[in-house]
């Protein structure tokens, strides 16, 4: 990881998801991978103090650009969300672990809840030319969904909204069973309750017989969102409980094996600070 002063190229509002910031940062872009994040300083001063972690939403190594979705949470989040073209942005990254797509995967199933779309979009863009990709996107309403025109044309997508304003009324987990039968590999990112629901599906599958759709659940990888301090692995503010004991979301994570996350140990957070 490096410290880099990025330059904002564009700031586009994406419904209720937040501001989509395109930032020229060739150093970070050149090292970044899907699932990893960048820790952004909200200004040059000490109030607000903490950097904010944002998962890469797009990585363009050739252009040296990254994109992140910024929810205007707290004064720090607001400051970052308000940056416009030409503004400097103090970046620390890329940080954390990345998703790993198996070579022999033909059908890749991606599941995104809310701003959890970020790493799924990176995966979709990278993998669409190599294998069949289906993306399930869920949100509270249509305004919380990622716009489909910003996805590669070859990616199939299924949408769910809690209020039924677009796509299937319900949650992403409602549409998963039929897709799991198709999938070779499953990757997901979203709020804790969504991942916990996936965890329960996995537990059921682990107990059940060997049926189609079982393998992708057992081997699923998920990216967790959590409050952070340093994001360098030193403060241990970000830990969640896993099969191996406490794990730092900023270092061992944010990408974990679904099977390892101990969801019953409690809800860590949604992204950003209250």
């Amino acid at each position, binding site marked *: 990881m*490096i410290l880099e002063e990025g330059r904002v190229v564009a700031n586009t509002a994406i419904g209720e998801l937040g501001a989509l910031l395109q930032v020229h940062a060739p150093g970070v872009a050149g090292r970044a991978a899907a699932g990893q994040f960048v820790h952004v300083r909200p200004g040059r001063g000490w109030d607000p103090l903490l950097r904010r972690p944002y998962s890469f939403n797009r990585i363009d190594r050739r252009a040296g650009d990254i994109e992140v979705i910024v929810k205007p949470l707290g004064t720090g989040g607001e400051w970052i969300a308000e940056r416009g073209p030409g503004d400097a942005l103090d970046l620390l990254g890329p940080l954390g672990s990345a998703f790993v797509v198996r070579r022999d995967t033909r059908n890749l199933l991606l599941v995104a809840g809310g701003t959890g779309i970020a790493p799924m979009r990176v995966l979709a863009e990278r993998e669409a030319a190599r294998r069949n990709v289906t993306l399930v996107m869920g949100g509270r309403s249509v305004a919380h969904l990622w716009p489909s025109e910003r996805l590669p044309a070859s990616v199939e997508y299924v949408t769910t909204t809690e209020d039924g304003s677009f796509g299937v009324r319900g949650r992403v987990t409602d549409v998963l069973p039929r897709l799991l039968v198709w999938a070779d590999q499953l990757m997901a990112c979203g709020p804790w309750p969504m991942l916990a629901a996936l965890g329960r599906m996995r537990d059921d599958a682990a107990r059940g017989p060997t049926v189609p759709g079982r393998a992708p659940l057992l081997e699923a990888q998920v990216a967790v969102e959590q409050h952070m301090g340093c994001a360098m692995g030193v403060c241990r503010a970000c830990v969640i409980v896993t099969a191996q004991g406490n794990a730092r979301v900023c270092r061992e994570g944010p990408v974990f094996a679904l099977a390892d996350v101990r969801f019953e140990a409690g809800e860590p957070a949604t992204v950003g600070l209250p």
Partner: protein
Amino acid sequence: MPWRRPRRREERAYESRESPEERLERASEAEEERDTVELAALDGASIVEAATGEPEADGSAPSLVIDASRIDEARAARDAARPEEGVDLSVEVARGLRLRNPVLAASGTFGQGTEYAELIDVSRLGAVVNKGTTRNPRPGNPQYRIAETPAGILNSIGLENPGAEEVARTYGPRWAKLGVPVVVNVAGYSVDDYVFVVETMLGTPAVVAFELNVSCPNVKGGMLFGCDPLLAAEVTRAVKQVTDLPVIVKLTPNAPDVVAVARAVEEAGADGLTAINTVLGMRIDVARRRPILGTGSGGLSGPAIRPIALHLTYQVAQAVSIPVIGAGGVTSARDALEFLMAGASAVQVGTATFADPEAPLRVVEGLAAYVRAQGLASIRELIGAALPARGAPLAE
């Protein structure tokens, strides 16, 4: 750095990776490439895939180049110019402990010193204080453990650490290569606990002193030692009996009479003091109608507590004759100068590092620039410059 491709499919996604610190260590020994090749041979991935964890993109630049550049960066960072060179910044931070400069990384904000070594040249610091180390491994407190406050943060980590034996075993060899002295921060619930940790850590490479955390507000009982002059003295005395290394006692601002504690531990043989640990504080999540932190309250740090820390440093420095290390909200050389002039012999930089990982080095550089600009022979001339007893006004 992206992770490695797991060696076997059934292996857990993140288990097969080493920590980035470990990787850096190996990179410096130029083993990275060989290992990558071995990994690739193991699971049939290409070298690029093994290095990046990503399938190789057709026609795109090989990602292995990125790894090589990281190694160069780490080297370049290490060999980078040191603007502080040639300026006498050395200070005695505790009786019997002289450091090359008066800037230490504060406990709990710098891990085991190895993590930030990936980003900055830690060998330019005066010393690194490691995360609070206890007798047994501790899992720490429930979430949330951190919350933002005006110009500061609240934390309630709960002394999560792998225990003294594991710290000595795992980090001793790495500390030997860090190029910076290490002060071990010791925490406990009984006098025996403190003694056990100190005895366990004795002989660990690079360890030059112990800092007794008698002030962590997050753990039940921790409050006791730091708040009661008699108990604080008892711990100090017991630890002094088992080690010849300097023993620094870290004061809590939450004690009813901080100066009394300072005097008591000096009397008991402490070689230095750190002032201060975090200040008790709280935030409420209005939507949920309950405290944000899992433990309810936590420790406040950052610029928000700087005036409190400065005031206590000023008071304690006048009350004792052992060196005092100032801590609390130091972000810049100017802040550090305030502490030095208030009687501190050195400062610790903690929370500021989270916002700016280069903050501790900027303090070192800034102090050197100040000493130069003021034409001083040594930074030591500034220590206590603002204390009433000395009353020496600054030139200009």
